[in-house]
């Protein structure tokens, strides 16, 4: 979003209308408001024309003006009054976030899942803290390579033998309690995750909570990412945690693959 231009091209861009979502200096109406203007204006214009009388004509002209203001993104009235609703990108529907944020929570997919495992939190934490163990838990991860105490390189499986890679850094860790990381350096799929370890009451072990957020890019790659994390990422994480609990508690993941039945093949 947002292409850079040279100084020479800038004047030309000034002259043409901005696309909704695009910016130029003359735009002072937010995206949402532009749409409302265009739609409302065209309805008014249609109504006015149908009336076939003088008041109708006036309404039609008003409607046309609203349409034009929506299309160009510039409102003369706003300009005169010094109003600019396009201040933020996209206008009032968009969230602000600070410089450390790697993804926009309103656009991200969020998965949160808790499981109780009959095992001490300190042990479970140590297993997760060695990030290279994570592919053994999370089905969609192919590998995690630790680069230093904070940074690591992750690789996830994508359909059709493809993969997606990114670099991540640990942003918070409290041994036995919390581990949090986020992708860095403009990852293709910005993502962040955290694991929380809390003692379960009654000596029942540990309540382990995983929170994952990722922002699929638009377009074809986005669809690929959606498939990679599963149609329901919630389900994938749930099953990942179930298998982890089974492995830790029972030492094996239950299976019936290879058992007999009367089905052929």
């Amino acid at each position: 979003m947002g292409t850079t231009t040279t100084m020479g091209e800038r004047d030309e861009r000034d002259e043409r209308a901005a696309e909704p979502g695009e910016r130029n200096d003359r735009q002072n109406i937010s995206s949402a408001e532009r749409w409302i203007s265009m739609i409302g204006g065209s309805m008014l214009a249609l109504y006015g024309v149908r009336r076939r009388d003088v008041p109708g004509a006036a309404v039609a002209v008003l409607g046309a003006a609203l349409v034009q203001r929506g299309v160009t993104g510039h409102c003369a009235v706003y300009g005169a009054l010094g109003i600019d609703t396009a201040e933020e990108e996209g206008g009032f529907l968009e969230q602000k976030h600070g410089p450390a944020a790697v993804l926009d929570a309103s656009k991200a997919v969020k998965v949160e899942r808790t499981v109780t495992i009959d095992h001490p939190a300190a042990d479970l934490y140590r297993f997760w803290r060695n990030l290279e163990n994570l592919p053994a838990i999370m089905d969609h991860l192919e590998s995690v390579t630790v680069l230093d105490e904070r940074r690591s390189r992750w690789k996830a499986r994508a359909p059709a033998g493809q993969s997606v890679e990114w670099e991540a850094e640990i942003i918070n860790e409290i041994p036995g309690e919390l581990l949090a990381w986020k992708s860095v350096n403009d990852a293709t799929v910005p993502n962040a995750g955290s694991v929380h370890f809390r003692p379960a009451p009654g000596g029942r072990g540990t309540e382990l909570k995983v929170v994952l957020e990722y922002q699929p890019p638009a377009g074809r790659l986005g669809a690929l990412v959606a498939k990679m994390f599963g149609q329901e990422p919630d389900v994938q994480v749930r099953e990942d945690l179930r298998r982890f609990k089974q492995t830790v508690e029972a030492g094996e993941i239950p299976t019936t693959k290879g058992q007999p039945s009367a089905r052929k093949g």
Partner: protein
Amino acid sequence: MKAVCWFGKEDMRVESVPDPELLSPRDAIVRVTSTAICGSDLHLYGGKVPSMRKGDILGHEFMGEVVDVGRGVKNLKTGDRVVVPFPISCGSCHYCKTERYSLCDNSNPNAWMLEALNGFAGAALFGYSHMYGGYAGGQAEFVRVPYADVGPKTVPGHLSDEQVLFLTDILPTGYQAAEQCGIRSGDTVAVWGCGPVGQFAIQSALLLGAERVIAIDRFPDRLAMARDVSRASDLVNYASDTDDVVETLKQLTGGRGPDHVIDAVGMEAHGTDAYSRLESGKQVLKLQMDRATALRQAIQACGKGGTVSVPGVYAGLIDKFPMGQLFAKGCRLVGGQTHAHRYVQPLLERIERGEIDPAAIITHRMRLDEAPHGYSIFQKKQDRCIKIVLTP
């Protein structure tokens, strides 16, 4: 090997299938010497249980000889004679460790299915549909037994198969149903359903201190067995003796009502009153999954302060639940799958002491090949069929 396989509603076939193999270090392979058809198998037979696939091997009441063990199994060796409890339990989760084996967290590879249905998933079962794990069952010549260091229990050579086979399911089920009531010495207990579980519930209630046990059913041969084999003190045939079971029970108990009631009938209850017919209709129209005639009667009949104990299988939702009565009488409702592992040893000891004779409820003995016929007569209650034991 030969195995009894499900192919659709009322379509059981004995097919030739591959022998099972060890799939995990904690597995064992058992050569089946005796196996039985359970009342709950009839829900599968009748096509009432979802997530079945054609070709699934059934059977969860089985025993035999260990012929192979995984390297992780230290408590069993080839040649051991074992009974195998029907729930598959890992032994390491919180529920297994607190002896609630039928609630195991870890044994079901398809736990998500039960979670979708019930919110939480319990233990997998042998031979009981894919939502219960899809494990091949024991109405076969060989079975693969997972978590073999937890389930199978060795049995002494001087007891015949018929004397110990029911430790796998129905005897612990009847016993747990009675134990759950919290019977005080001298209590009266009423049992709906005189099938095998009901028979063992009657016997267990008496062993646990009940002075009188009232048996309720509509089949004279089952009521006769309740009296002659299980020693029930009173019989009520709801089809011929009375049209108001609740009132009859009240009169039989000096106006107090039974101290505890056991519903050993479950979701395919048969009733003769108008509401029962309505419920059957609703089932046909898929408006309701379970028929709850027996359960409703049990709740209504239960005396003040008593327990309504439900070993009968229920799966879905029911209408017209007498919650107000339950509350007004201060009754307790408890149910669930049997924690069979917990009862094998104590009940084995009772069998050895001659306190229980489980074999007395067997009415039919067949070869494994004859299983389809067995299912048919068991379901129709033909030929005075109460319990069938199959030998491969």
